[in-house]
C-alpha cells in the first residue's frame, strides 16, 4: 500500500507528541479532527505577518490579509469543485444550515414542504423546526432502514409537488452511511425542489465534487476537516444566493447604506456580515489545499481497511450491536455500536484510561436513537492518521471495560 500512515501522523503535532507512557488513540474525529502543522503555520503566519481586517483597508497588512482571505476562498472552492464566489465562510455547518433555513426559508410560503430525515444531526433538524414555526412550512421526515441508511423506498410519496427543499446528511455522523445523493436529487428535480447536503462528516474523507453531485447547497465545518474551529463553509448556487435575502446584517455585507435603506454587496459577501474569522478561514483554505494534494484512493483504502478491522472485531462479540451498515459499501469510517449491559459513557470513560478517545451518547441525533430505542451508542470515527494500533487498543479496551462493568 502506497499510503504511509506514520508519515501522515508525523504531520500532526498532537499525535506526534502522544506516545510512550501516554499513548493516544484518537478515534473521535467525527467530533473534531486533529490539525496538521502546515495549517497551524498558515494561521500563525497570518497572525504574525499580515494580521489586519479584510476588504476595507488600503494599507499593506490589509492588502495581504485580503489576498490571503480570497485565496482561502479559492482553495475551498477547488476542494468542492465550485466557483469561489459561491463559497460563503460561516462559523461552521450549524451556521451554514441556519443561514439557508433563514434566507432560503424566507422565500417559502406556508404549506411549502421541507424534507429532512430521521438520521440527521440536530443541526439539520432544529433550524427547520424553527422555520416551520416561523413560516408555517410543513416538515416531512424520511425514515431510516434497520442498517442505518436513509430509507428511500417511500421517497416519491414523501417528496410531493409542495416540496421546496430536501436537506439531508451526505454521510451520517452516527451510522457512517453515505446517502444515495443521485436518487435524492432526482426526486427533488422531479418536483422542482432544491437539495442541501450536510457534508460535515464527509468532508474529512477527501475533496468533494459538488458539481457532479448536482445539489444546490453544501455545508461543512473546518474543525472536522483538519482546520481550526470557528470556521466552516456554505456553498450555494449563484442564482439561489442572489435570490435569497441576507441572513445577518452589518458591516462587510453592504454596497451602500443610507439611514433609510441598504444596498447589499454581491455574494458571497452579502452573507458574510461583520469581520469574518480571517485566520480560521485561512487555516481552512490551507487544510483544503493540503487535502487536495493527498492520494485519496490510497487513503480511502487505508481508512476502509481499518473500518473493516473494527467491524470484524466488534462482529465477533455477542454482546455488541453495530448501529449502521455492516459492510463498507457507501460508508465513511464511522462506526457506532451498543454493548449490552454497558452504558456508552461508562465504556468511553474506561477506554479513556487506556488513551482511547471515543464519543459516547446520542451524538446530537436523538430521533435516530429513538428509532433504534437506544439511549446512545459508542462511536469510533476514524481519520487518515489512524492505524491498526488504534483499532486494537479499542477492541482490547472494550474487553476490559465490559469485564469491569459486567
Amino acid at each position, binding site marked *: 500500500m502506497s499510503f504511509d500512515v506514520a508519515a501522515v501522523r508525523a504531520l500532526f503535532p498532537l499525535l506526534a507528541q502522544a506516545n510512550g507512557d501516554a499513548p493516544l488513540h484518537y478515534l473521535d474525529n467525527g467530533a473534531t479532527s486533529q490539525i496538521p502543522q502546515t495549517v497551524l503555520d498558515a494561521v500563525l503566519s497570518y497572525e504574525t505577518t499580515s494580521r489586519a481586517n479584510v476588504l476595507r483597508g488600503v494599507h499593506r497588512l490589509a492588502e495581504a490579509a485580503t489576498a490571503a482571505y480570497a485565496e482561502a476562498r479559492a482553495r475551498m472552492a477547488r476542494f468542492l469543485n465550485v466557483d469561489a464566489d459561491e463559497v460563503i465562510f460561516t462559523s461552521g455547518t450549524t451556521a451554514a444550515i441556519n443561514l439557508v433555513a433563514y434566507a432560503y426559508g424566507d422565500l417559502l410560503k406556508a404549506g411549502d414542504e421541507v424534507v429532512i430525515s430521521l438520521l440527521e444531526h440536530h443541526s439539520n433538524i432544529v433550524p427547520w423546526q424553527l422555520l416551520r414555526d416561523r413560516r408555517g412550512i410543513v416538515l416531512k421526515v424520511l425514515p431510516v432502514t434497520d442498517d442505518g441508511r436513509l430509507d428511500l423506498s417511500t421517497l416519491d410519496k414523501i417528496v410531493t409537488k409542495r416540496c421546496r427543499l430536501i436537506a439531508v446528511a451526505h454521510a451520517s455522523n452516527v451510522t457512517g452511511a453515505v446517502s444515495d445523493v443521485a436518487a435524492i436529487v432526482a426526486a427533488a428535480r422531479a418536483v422542482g425542489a432544491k437539495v442541501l447536503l450536510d457534508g460535515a462528516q464527509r468532508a474529512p474523507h477527501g475533496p468533494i465534487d459538488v458539481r457532479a453531485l448536482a445539489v444546490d447547497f453544501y455545508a461543512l465545518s473546518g474543525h472536522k476537516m483538519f482546520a481550526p474551529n470557528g470556521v466552516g463553509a456554505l456553498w450555494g448556487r449563484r442564482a439561489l444566493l442572489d435570490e435569497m435575502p441576507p441572513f445577518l446584517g452589518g458591516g462587510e455585507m453592504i454596497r451602500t447604506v443610507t439611514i433609510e435603506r441598504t444596498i447589499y454587496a454581491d455574494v458571497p459577501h452579502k452573507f458574510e456580515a461583520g469581520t469574518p474569522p480571517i485566520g480560521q478561514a485561512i487555516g481552512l483554505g490551507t487544510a483544503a489545499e493540503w487535502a487536495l494534494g493527498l492520494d485519496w484512493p490510497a487513503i480511502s483504502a487505508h481508512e476502509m481497511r481499518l473500518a473493516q478491522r473494527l467491524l470484524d472485531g466488534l462482529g465477533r462479540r455477542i454482546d455488541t450491536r453495530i448501529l449502521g451498515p455492516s459492510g463498507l459499501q457507501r460508508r465513511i469510517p464511522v462506526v457506532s455500536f451498543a454493548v449490552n449491559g454497558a*452504558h*456508552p*459513557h*461508562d465504556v468511553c*470513560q*474506561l477506554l479513556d484510561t487506556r488513551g482511547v478517545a471515543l464519543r*459516547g*451518547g*446520542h451524538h446530537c441525533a*436523538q430521533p435516530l*436513537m429513538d428509532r433504534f430505542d437506544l*439511549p*446512545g451508542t459508542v462511536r469510533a470515527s476514524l481519520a487518515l492518521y489512524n492505524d491498526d494500533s488504534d483499532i486494537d487498543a479499542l477492541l482490547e479496551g472494550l474487553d476490559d471495560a465490559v469485564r*469491569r*462493568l459486567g
Partner: protein
Amino acid sequence: MSDDIYQQAILDHAKAAEDGGSVETPDASVTLDNPLCGDRVRIDVKMSGARIAALAHRVRGCALCQAAADVIRVRAVGQTVDGIAATAAELRAMLKDERLPPAGAWSDLGIFLPVRRHRSRHDCVLLPFAALGSALQQARASRG
C-alpha cells in the same frame, strides 16, 4: 479513597439499581433527561406528611446515574423535603466546589468523590437528585 470512578462500591450500587422498586399510587412521579447523554431517570414518591414514605426509580443511564439512584433508594425514605434539598446541595458542592461529602446518613455519597475531576460526568450523579427534588415539589404542590 480510590480515584477510580468505577470502584466496587459504585458498581455494586449500579448493579442494585436494576431493581428500582415500585410504589403503588405515588403522590408524584417525575422523569428527567440529561440532554448531554440522553440518560433518563424516573422517580416515584409517596409522602407521609413532610417525609418520604416510599420511593422507587427507573434509570436508563450510566453506572454513575444508576448508583446515585440506588443510594437515593436506600437512604431517602424517612427524609424530609428540606433534608433532601440540603443533601442535594451538599452533593453538588462536593462535586463542583471541592467541599467534603455529606455527613451522617448520606455519607456514602462520598463514593462519588472521584467523579469530581470529571466535569462532564457531574450531571450523571446529580440527575437522580434533580428528579427527586422535582418529584418532591410536585408532591407538595398536589397536596396544596
